[in-house]
Each structure stands twice: as C-alpha cells, then as structure tokens.
C-alpha cells in the first residue's frame, strides 16, 4: 500500500506536519493488554462497587428487571455496529424500530408526535423549554421545585446565556404536590412554559390538569416531565400537556452509574416543526413498498446550522432500542401488571412507615426518619447488604431527616421489612 501511495514508510504520511506540532515523546500509556487482562481489570473494578446489595434508591434511576431479550436484540451486530440511518435503503431495520419507538412513546404519553431520543431526561427538559420559547415567542420559564433537582440544574446551565430566565415555584408542604397559588403568582404574559414532573421528585402524582389550565390561561405551554416511565403503565397520561420531556431508563436500561440513558421529547402535533432531534417518518420506495426514512431534517443542525432547533446530532439510538424491545416484551398487559407490582410494593413499605407527604404516590415516597438522621438509617442498613434511600436534605434544606425511598418489582418483602426495622 505504501508503494501505491508512493511513500517509503508510515512516518512519511505525516511529514507535512510541522515539527513543533508533532508529539515530542511517546504517549505515557502502558502497552496493550490481552482481552483476558482487560476483563480481569474491569471485574476487579466492579468488585470495588456495591455488589449483591438490595437498593431502595430511585430519584430518577430505577432498579427494574431487564429481560434477557433486550441484550439478545441489541447485541446483534446489525443494530450494534450501524450508525444513524442516513441511507434508508440499507437501514430499514433501525428506521422501522425507531418509528415503533416514536409510536409507543406517543401511546404511553398521550402525545401526537415523539422524536427518536434525546441524550437523557435532564437534557430533554431544557430542549423542551427552548422549544416552548420558539413556539410562544416568549422567553421566561417557571419550573416546579419538585422537578428533579439535577434536571433543574441542567435547565439553568442551558438557559443562562439564551436570555431565558428560569424561576422556580414551590410545592405544598403537606401534600408534596405543586403549590398552585405560588405557580399562579409566578405566571405572567412573558411565560413561555410551566414545567412540572409527575410522579414528582418526591414520588407524588401531580395534578396535571390544573397545572395545564393555569398555564394555558396565561398563554403558556405546559411541559410535563417524567423520570419513572414505569408509572405510565397505570397513570393517566398527560393529555393536557403540550410538551412531554421524559427519561426511559426504567425500560431495560441498566443504572450504569447514571448513563447512558434515553431521553425523549413528545408533543402535540402542532408543535412538530419546533421539535429538536431526529424524526423518522413513513414513506414509500419506488416500488410502492412501505419504507421509512429520517425526515423534517430542515430543523436540524446539519442543514439549518446556526438556526437549527438544537445542536443535537448523535443521540441514544441503541438505548432507545433497548426501551423499544422492553415495551414489546411487556406490552399492554405487562406494563400495567408491572406498574401494579411497583405500586403494591411501595405502598406495602409506606404502610409500615410515616410518609412525609399526603399526596398520592406511585413507587416512591418520602418518609421522616424521626429519631435518627437519614444517614444513620442508611448506615444501619449497609451491614444487611441493603442500600437505603436518598437523604432529601441533599437537595432540599427544608427537608431535614427525610428520606426518599423507592420500591420496584425487584424489592423483596424481607428486605422491605428490614428497612422498616431500621426506622425503629
């Protein structure tokens, strides 16, 4: 090959790089290791983390069972090692599965259209807010304090230089639901969107209808956020919302210390042209066969450049496929049964403790740790190989000695009883 090119050696391929630009000494990285050594290394690292613990942590990342089918499918090289389906004639597998993903997300959320995925739930929120700004021509957004705190941090990071002021509104100290009065007081005719999450960070189911009415009454859009997709198996979908920004981690996506996950944005049809991210549409090929392809890309950065609806390019396709396979395996009945199991477990444990809020909850709830601090309760559980709940004071100074507990279909009764004990 060197002969064909007409150079004496590999080095010469770089001879046009100025000397002072080339690396001065070899990279300080040890020589290559064998596959066996590499597996060994990561097994050892994994062993340094929690192994075989039961966990009652939720707070945006949920411990659901992951059907074997999921890896069976996503491990197929045809899905794993292909890229964005730019060439529909040899990408119908990916395109069809994304079209199914978009459809199932619409069915789950009650929205008309959904995109092919966002990085995660936290980045979907600012993208949704920016979308609302484009739709309404207004700039201000108000977000419930019961929206995942880290999501709100990300919202602020994105917003800071876009002339998009973000203001929080409170939650009702008793019910744990949004404080409608406070929301109303924060609304004005500059408000592009109201952002709520349900079940909210405290696991409480919000009154989406009322929030929507308030928002709409002031000409603002309602952005509905969800972090626990499993709840949509049983909860009324946010039909009154205008935009839904969610996280699908619950659907066969391993917690994996926080990523990769799959975010999604769904919306009412009329906002379609302002959606960020990839969209797959149905069409036909020259023989009249049904065929799918990427569409409406005039919204996107590679065409619109500085005027694009977002800068997103590579998204989370393979992770979205995991969620698609998961939804297929469980189906209509399965997602419902799963939701009921999650609820039943959470309500079983809550029944043995004193929930901090009175609002209805799905599989997460806040509890006072009474006598001791949240930290103490968790310490007491570790020796039993149980990771307790999240200390809410971390994000909510006003919630001292309060812990957020999550139960899923994976939570065993004995373990829940152990947790209840630790509060004694």
């Amino acid at each position, binding site marked *: 090959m060197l002969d064909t090119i007409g150079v004496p050696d590999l080095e010469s391929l770089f001879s046009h790089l100025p000397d002072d630009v080339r690396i001065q000494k070899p990279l300080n990285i040890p020589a290559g290791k064998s596959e066996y050594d590499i597996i060994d290394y990561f097994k050892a690292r994994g062993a340094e983390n929690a192994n075989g613990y039961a966990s009652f942590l939720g707070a945006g990342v949920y411990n659901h069972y992951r059907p074997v089918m999921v890896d069976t499918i996503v491990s197929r090289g045809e899905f794993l090692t292909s890229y964005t389906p730019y060439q529909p004639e040899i990408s119908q597998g990916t395109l069809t599965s994304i079209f199914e993903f978009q459809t199932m997300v619409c069915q789950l959320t009650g929205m008309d259209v959904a995109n092919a995925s966002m990085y995660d739930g936290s980045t979907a929120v600012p993208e949704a807010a920016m979308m609302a700004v484009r739709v309404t021509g207004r700039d201000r957004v108000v977000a419930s304090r019961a929206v995942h705190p880290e999501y709100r941090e990300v919202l602020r990071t994105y917003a800071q230089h876009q002339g998009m002021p973000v203001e929080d509104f409170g939650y009702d100290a008793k019910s744990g639901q949004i404080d409608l009065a406070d929301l109303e007081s924060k609304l004005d005719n500059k408000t592009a969107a109201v952002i709520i999450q349900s079940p909210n960070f405290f696991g409480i*189911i919000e009154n989406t209808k009322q929030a929507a009415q308030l928002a709409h009454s002031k000409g603002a859009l309602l952005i509905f956020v969800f972090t626990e997709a499993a709840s949509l198996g049983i909860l009324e979908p946010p039909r009154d919302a205008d935009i839904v920004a969610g996280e699908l981690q619950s659907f066969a996506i391993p917690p994996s210390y926080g990523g990769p996950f799959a975010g999604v944005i769904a919306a009412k049809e009329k906002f379609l042209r302002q959606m960020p991210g990839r969209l797959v549409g*149905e069409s036909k090929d020259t023989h009249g066969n*049904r065929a799918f392809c990427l569409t409406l890309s005039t919204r996107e950065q590679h065409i*619109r450049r500085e005027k694009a609806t977002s800068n997103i390019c*590579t998204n989370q396709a393979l992770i979205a496929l995991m969620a698609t396979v998961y939804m297929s*395996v469980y189906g209509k009945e399965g997602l419902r049964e799963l939701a009921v199991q999650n609820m039943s477990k959470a309500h079983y444990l809550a029944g043995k403790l004193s929930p901090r809020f009175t609002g209805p909850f799905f599989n997460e709830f806040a509890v006072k740790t009474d006598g001791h601090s949240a930290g103490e309760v968790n310490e007491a559980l570790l020796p039993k190989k149980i990771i307790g709940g999240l200390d809410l004071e971390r994000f909510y100074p006003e919630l001292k000695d309060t812990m957020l507990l999550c139960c899923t279909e994976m939570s065993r009764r004995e373990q829940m009883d152990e947790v209840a004990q630790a509060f004694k």
Partner: protein
Amino acid sequence: MIKKVRPHITQNEPLLFERSSPGKKGYQLPDLDVPAIDPTQALGAANTRAEIEDFPEVSEVDVIRHFTRLSTWNYAIDLGCYPLGSCTMKYNPRVNELVARTEGLAWIHPYQPESLAQGALEIIGVLESMLAEITGMDAVTLQPAAGAHGELTGILLTRALLQSRGNARKKVLVPDSAHGTNPATATMCGYTVENIKSNDRGVIDIATLSQAVTEDVAALMVTNPNTVGVFEEDIKKIAEVMHDKGAVVYMDGANMNALVGIARPGDFGIDVMHLNLHKTFSTPHGGGGPGSGAVAVKKHLEPFLPGPRLKRDGGKWSWNYDLPQSVGRVRAFYGNFGVLVRALAYIMAHGGPGLRVATMDAVLNANYLRKLLEPHYQIAYQAPSMHECVFSDDRQAKRGVRTGDIAKRLIDYGFHPYTVSFPLIVHGALMIEPTETEGKAELDLLADALISVAGEVEQDPEMVLKAPHSTRTSRVDEVAAARRPILRWKPQSTASLAAD
C-alpha cells in the same frame, strides 16, 4: 462488476402493532409477595388510565423474530466497510460490550455511597487522565453525552472564562467547512456566528482570520484535521492570532483519529476541545448513539468545568460539588458511564504504542484509497489527506449524476456509502473515511466498486440515477415523507400494508 454481494431472500415483517393480538404475552413477572393494590382505589380514577391504547401485545417469539428480521435489513460494520466520512466507523471490539455489562459496573446507582462506588470512580479517574495525556490538555470532563454536547460545554466554558475577565464578547468564528453542530452550538450559547471562508487549499486563511478577529470575538471553533481531511498546518499561528486578541481556540476533536499518538492539540495552542469517544475510541455507534463528548481544557478553563468534579485524597475517590466558578451541570449524574467503560477498555487493549499504530493505519488507508480513486474522481483539494479523503462529483455531475446517486449505486456493490454532500464547501462532496480497521482486501473492493460506478456514470447514467437496484427497499421518497409527515403508526393508517 459486482463482486461483494449476491441477492438472497430476506424475511418481510409487519410493524409490531400489526403483529399484535389481544391477550398475547411475552413476559412473566415474579409472584407478588405483598398484597396487591387496586390502582384506582389507591390513586383515584382521575389519576389512572384504563389501558395504553393500541399498545402492542405479542409473544416472546414474536419479539425475537420481529427484531431479528428487522436487523437483517441493516448494513453494519460487522458486515463490511462503512466509510462514512467524519464518523470514524471502526470495528467495535466485543470485549468492550462484555466488560460494560459487568454486574458491578452496569448495576450501580449514581446516588449510592461513594464508598460503594470506588471502582466506578477509579475508571472515570483513569480515563480522564489518559485522555488528558492523549490530548496534551490539563483537565477533562466526561459529563457530555456526545460531541455536540461537548461543544456546548466547551463554548459555555469559553463564555465563563471571558465573563470572568469582564466581557463575554459577542461572536464565534466558524470556518465554512465546519460541521453543523459548531454554529448551532455557538447560537445555543448566545453567540452570533461569523463564518470564515476557507482558502483554495481548503484550510483557514491567516489573513482572512486576522481580519475577522476583533474584540467582539469570543472564540474560533476549528476542526483539525478539518472536515476535508486536511491538517491545519498553520494551527499554531492561528492560535496565536486568536490569543493575541484575547479569544479562545476551541477544537472540534471529531477527527482525533488522525492525530492520536502523532500530535496533541494541547501542544499546538488549543484551549478547549471535545473528543467523540464513540468515534476515536470505538464505542459502537448503535444506529445513532449513545456517544460521549469528553471535553479537555487547559488550566485556565478548569475552574469553570461542570460539576461535580472527581477528586482523590487519602487513596479514596470522591465527588467535589464545591465549584464556585463552574458553568453548572450539562446533564444529570456523571456522564455516559457505560460508554466510558468501553472507551477505557479500548485504550487499554491498544496501549500507547497501539493507539499510534492505529492512527498511522487510518491515515495509510485513507491515502491508499485517495491514490486509487484520484484518476476517477475529482479530489477536492490537493493538500495531503489525513484520515479521510474528500472528492467532489464535478466530473460525474456533467453526466447529471450527483454524489447522492453514486452513493446509492455503491449500495448495489455491497458497501455503505461515504458521507454525502458534506462538507458544504465542496461541491457535491464524497467524503470517505475508511478507518484503520479495514484490510487491504476490503479497500481494494471499495475502490474497485467506486471506479466501476464512475464507468457506469459514463456509459449508463440513467441506471445509476435509479440505484439501488438490488436492495429489498429501493430508493425512498424522502420528499413525500417530509411533505406529509407520518411519524407514528395509527390503527387505520398502515393497516392496508399489514402483509408487508
């Protein structure tokens, strides 16, 4: 002559919804070990739904067949060369998939005690330092989820730095050859974009640049090697020009596959850059992600990095949230950890020397293809190629055949096409990036195919315009798709095609 493929039968498959029939089940849950709760009673009718309307109901075998059949309609690296320019479609070692699924790595919660996550933190720490070494930068954040997200982070850092110096400035300079994410990112950070015209060698012209750099300019977003596969030889001078005006030099590192072990951005004046771990470090592209857009910075930008930051003391790793100058989080938690595991496994497998060899092979392959194709296609720029070579369809356009048509015909020859009509500065671009993991045999087949197509363009352009001819799906009407968007299945809409 087509040497690489032969026609065969592939299974048809309806949409999952068309396969669905009431009562079918593909799952079984463990028995409930607590009293079952009635949702409507517990939550109230208003809060519960009767059912998920039209949601699929299928069996386990339906599911495996559905997705297995779908998969056979895809092209992939595992099937052959995927020379999609700028995307670095290299082979993805399967050991990376295995280690990412290690129970102690895949099943750990981001909020579990740091004392029970030391292994994960160690992986993040080691990867940060290796990427710093590879780029020659001082600090790295692994939080961004993809390249564009890394760009966003990098420009936010730039803005914070300048702000801290008293003036965030107004403009970001972007060469007209840049990837679309660059200008889109600048806008998201509240900057206006000024395009810099590339010169006839396809690179940034120092004079043009110097003129453009005013006190209003916050940064230059440079891609090196740039999107025409040419190394910006004046990069140090470029950095000087920017720095003299107090501006920042951002490097889009999507093309680092041409530089790893050969040259380090930190050594040629870059202040901040992103890496696409899913490209240079071979984490599977998965039909469009997930990725990771690690951002590397020089000391002066470090204080502004998103939090939390990893720190180590007393032999223990922990997260530091006390970062007064941080631009704030760009996403929840700590980044696409699963992707980071794969990238580190890749680096460990190659090692320092191996990474360098990979880079040289990538450049070798691109130049080999360039040499074979130059007689038949118009090379965009004479300048030496790095990891990819970009041609224009000028000669073929004379026969009414454009790069997009050549791409479709290439499909008949058994290849995934190159990147079509990007970069925009090349008229009808054919952007070809073979990567280092292709062997000579596959490259020869690719060159052979492209040369053969060039011939067909002369003899029978009509045939090429109708390509592909041998795929189960022929050319798709993308115009119709956009004119009347159907973005989801509905009970009626596609029922007629159920047999399909």
